């Protein structure tokens, strides 16, 4: 299963791209996806504690089980206003 991942705000600069695709075996949780992702993008791993994770337009935590068609977004704390 391939999961597209979008990086928002300065996470895109840290990742060196704003979008990537991660191939994971099923079933995989968000945590499983992140483990693969952090191997490829160690700069993001350092910010894991302050990373927000969405699947589609909803926040999810690491235990969320990914489905085909899911789109993951990673971003730093939000700053609207």
């Amino acid at each position: 299963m391939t999961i597209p991942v979008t990086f928002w705000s300065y996470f895109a600069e840290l990742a060196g791209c704003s979008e990537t695709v991660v191939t994971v075996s099923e079933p995989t949780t968000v945590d499983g996806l992140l483990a693969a992702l952090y191997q490829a993008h160690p700069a993001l791993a350092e910010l894991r504690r302050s990373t927000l994770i969405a699947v589609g337009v909803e926040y999810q935590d690491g235990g969320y089980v990914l489905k085909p068609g899911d789109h993951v977004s990673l971003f730093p704390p939000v700053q609207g206003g």
Partner: protein
Amino acid sequence: MKRYLSITRDPLDEAGLVADRTLSSGMGAAVYFSGVVRGQEGADAIVALDYSCFVPMAEHQFQRLFDRLAQRGSVESVRLVHRIGRVPVGESSLWIEVVSAHRAEAFAACQWVIDEMKQVVPIWKKPVTAADACLPSDSNPAS
């Protein structure tokens, strides 16, 4: 509860928004907040903020906040405009109006929306200094 949401690259027309207000005869209070970009971000002088936004998620999260506000039952209408892209110092990035029967409810609800928004709505800002100002604004995907 009536609701109006706009996430836009256009300057906020606050006077026009105020002129468009509608309220029923039981309503006694309209509370407004306009958040303006300051000329200082931390210790640095800036000329603008570049706001980027994950728009579909931001819209969804705003609507979830409005759902929760509606459950409180005391607010007749909420209108919210968030400007994104490059917002110069002295211009508004955020405008909120809450209409309620009584002012305490309207003040509380307006502040609640701002507080919650700052937790969950995926919008980010990047300071723009005079040196940056000739560069194009932040080019995040779909922002």
